[in-house]
């Protein structure tokens, strides 16, 4: 389906290709709707875990400081973030179950092909991470009165361990699709596990996990700093607000730097080594070049196979990829167009948005840390404004990063082994797919309203309100009313 580059000269051959393209991925095709539904549900889902995984270590820090300094303010701060965590966790759970189901419902041919391998990591996530996480979250949220201080700290720590373990199993699953290892082909055409440790210790998984988790901490710390900045600017809950800003800014700087170097650098070089076509498409490098430039801004033009309005840094791409200014970087022209990612412009923009925002995060957090060090941050209203308004961008960057990884893997579902068009459920028609997709869209719209309403209420109530939660609840009812 070489729609992209067959372009300008109108010959009979090209017209036929274009027509077949429309027939193959028209808006009514089953492949399109299955991809759309998974993309929608997984993108929506990941808005919530990225915050919970990012907040979990910050909450452990707050609990640790509360014990070390013997200061109740930190406990109130921890309780506030635990409530935010709880709401996000609940939505993360209810939007996460459909993802596991969809491997079977919408991608049954893929599951039959690869279930023997990735079933391991998915089942392990359920068995190890979810039980751990749900148990200790219950204890952490509702057990503060029944547990000792040390035990409550331990519950917070185990929530952190559980949510990060869950992240690893999912990243390891995706990493296998990006870089399949530890498998063997069996007689019926499916793949089966050959080496458990090769699957679990996939080098791709290690790099992707490091990059992904520091991305989650960026979201967590930017959100924490933003809420603190909001309170400071509104002159509310000053004590806790300073804690939020301080911890948010310091953790945010560390995570933002780690995101670029070394994790982002590792990820980029791994893509160059194992998916050179993907790298070329991310950078919109149409032709193989020695001393390839890095495009900072510009619009890929698929018809002419050039970049419109480019601003470039000469030789930078070669250096970043191979540490040599004149190194040869593979361009898209080296492979058949059928093997190119189908949506190169989207891939290019997703990647550039991620990198651009990542650079901005470092700048903002470095500046804020500088002001914090000089003791001027809490009075610098302009900086607090920036911190407050920055919180949506880590969500954008994390989403763009995942779009880069998944669109970049195309046209493969399992890199080099199974194409996306082979993997969906052939028995589920486009009509049934649209029915459920629209249903999910409606359901998630309702969820979004409820979520915003609840978060708004928590932020309005603020951290000083923080009495320990007890699970049977509110004080408004007296025993007289009960009987």
């Amino acid at each position, binding site marked *: 389906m070489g729609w992209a580059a067959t372009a300008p000269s109108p010959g009979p051959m090209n017209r036929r290709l274009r027509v077949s393209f429309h027939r193959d991925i028209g808006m009514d095709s089953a492949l399109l709707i299955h991809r759309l539904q998974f993309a929608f549900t997984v993108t929506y889902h990941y808005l919530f875990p990225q915050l919970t995984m990012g907040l979990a270590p910050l909450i452990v820090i707050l609990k640790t400081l509360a014990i070390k300094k013997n200061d109740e303010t930190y406990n109130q701060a921890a309780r506030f973030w635990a409530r935010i965590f709880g709401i996000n966790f609940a939505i993360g759970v209810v939007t996460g179950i*459909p993802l596991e189901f969809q491997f079977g419902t919408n991608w049954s041919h893929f599951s039959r092909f690869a279930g023997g391998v990735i079933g*391991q990591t998915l089942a*392990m996530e*359920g068995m190890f991470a979810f*039980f751990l996480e749900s*148990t200790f979250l*219950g204890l952490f949220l509702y057990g503060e009165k029944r547990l000792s201080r040390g035990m409550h700290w331990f519950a917070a720590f185990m929530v952190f361990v559980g949510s990060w373990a869950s992240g690893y199993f999912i990243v390891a699953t995706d990493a296998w699709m990006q870089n399949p290892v530890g498998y063997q082909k069996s007689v019926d055409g499916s793949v089966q596990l050959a080496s458990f440790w090769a699957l679990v210790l996939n080098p791709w998984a290690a790099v992707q996990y490091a990059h992904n988790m520091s991305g989650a901490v960026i979201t967590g710390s930017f959100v924490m700093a933003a809420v603190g900045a909001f309170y400071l600017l509104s002159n509310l809950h000053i004590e806790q607000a300073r804690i939020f800003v301080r911890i948010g800014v310091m953790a945010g700087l560390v995570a933002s730097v780690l995101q670029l170097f070394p994790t982002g650098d590792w990820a980029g070089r791994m893509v160059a080594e194992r998916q050179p076509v993907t790298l070329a498409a991310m950078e919109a490098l149409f032709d193989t070049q020695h001393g390839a430039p890095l495009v900072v801004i510009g619009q890929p033009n698929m018809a002419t196979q050039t970049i419109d309005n480019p601003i470039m840094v000469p030789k930078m791409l070669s250096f970043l990829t191979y540490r040599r200014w004149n190194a040869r970087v593979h361009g898209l022209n080296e492979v058949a167009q059928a093997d190119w990612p189908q949506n190169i412009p989207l891939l290019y923009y997703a990647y550039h948005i991620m990198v651009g925002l990542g650079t901005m995060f470092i700048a903002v957090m470095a500046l804020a840390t500088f002001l914090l060090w000089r003791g001027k941050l809490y009075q610098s209203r302009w900086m607090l404004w920036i911190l407050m308004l920055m919180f949506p961008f880590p969500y954008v960057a994390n989403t763009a990063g995942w779009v880069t990884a998944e669109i970049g893997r195309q046209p493969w579902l399992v890199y080099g082994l199974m194409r996306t068009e082979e993997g969906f*459920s052939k028995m589920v028609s486009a009509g049934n797919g649209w029915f459920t997709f629209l249903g999910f869209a409606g359901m998630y719209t309702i969820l979004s309203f409820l979520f915003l309403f609840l978060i708004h209420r928590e932020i309005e109530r603020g951290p000083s309100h923080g009495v320990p939660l007890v699970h049977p609840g509110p004080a408004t009812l007296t025993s007289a009313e009960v009987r």
Partner: protein
Amino acid sequence: MPTIWFMIVALMVSIYVLLDGFDIGAGAVHLLLAKNDVERRTILRAIGPVWDGNEVWLIAAGGTLYFAFPLLYASSFSGFYLPLIMVLWLLMLRGIGIEFRSHLEHGLWTSAFDVIFSLASVLLAIFFGAALGNVVRGVALNSEGYFFEPLWTNFRVGTNNGILDWYTVTIGVVALVTLVVHGSLYLATKTEGDLNARSRRIASVLWPVQVLLTGLSLIATIYVRPGVLNNFLRWPIGYLIPLVVVASLLYLFVALRRKNDKGAFLASCGYILGMLVGAAFALYPMVLPASTEPNFSLTIYNTATGPHGMQVGFVWWGIAMVLAVGYFVFVYRMFRGKVRVEDGTGGHGY
């Protein structure tokens, strides 16, 4: 090895039904049982700390099924596409109903979420029952091991099956009654006073219905799938299973008369386990029978994962299971005892 994994998956599904079954059942009787806001809140508190942990068993059972029998997962999940997606929506609505109800003290808000919660629970019970009915009845598998079922066709059992026909709807009703009894008995153990008495009354009233439906479903199953008795003839030890079912029902009756709520709840657990294990035992080694050609049926042998995967899985599954059981015992002990609305001083609650 596939047999062991068949038992493991059956075990995990059974644990899921026993645990989430009582909170689904409690949800189904929620509106019927509780007369005012305080009673409704008491019910939600009885299941509040445990319901999402219970639901994790569904995810874990699903993951284990996916890993041990990938083809079965692929085939059944895509074939039952519509009802499964609807189950997802119902699970979401139920979760929203429980968790968001008490965030705003406004009559309209709480009533709306009570109705959502209760309705979603009723439908879930029926859907799960119908799903079991579909598996026992068999589906129109093709030679590749795939099928697709519309929600309904003509409500007859034949080769042109829908998800809902007279047989699967019957099983759906059996499931609803069973879980309503199960949920009421759980609530009876967790509450006091009026609510406790009313919970027990619901179970008592439904007891004869449950006995009748059990007999009816057995006859219907033998009619729809005459082969179900083969395994019992082959391994007579299987007759223990109906014995457990009958004994549980009898003990349930006795315990209800003696107002022994814990005993009654355990009897209900025994009954559910007996019914599920019975179904699994009767199907074995089939996991999804074909209504088209018997040799298209999916069995544990033609759907199982590779040998290395099974062996490795056995090691980590064992470790994870010990941990999971440990957590559950711990949490249920921490939140044991009767629920009262007055204890607790603030913050979030139901």
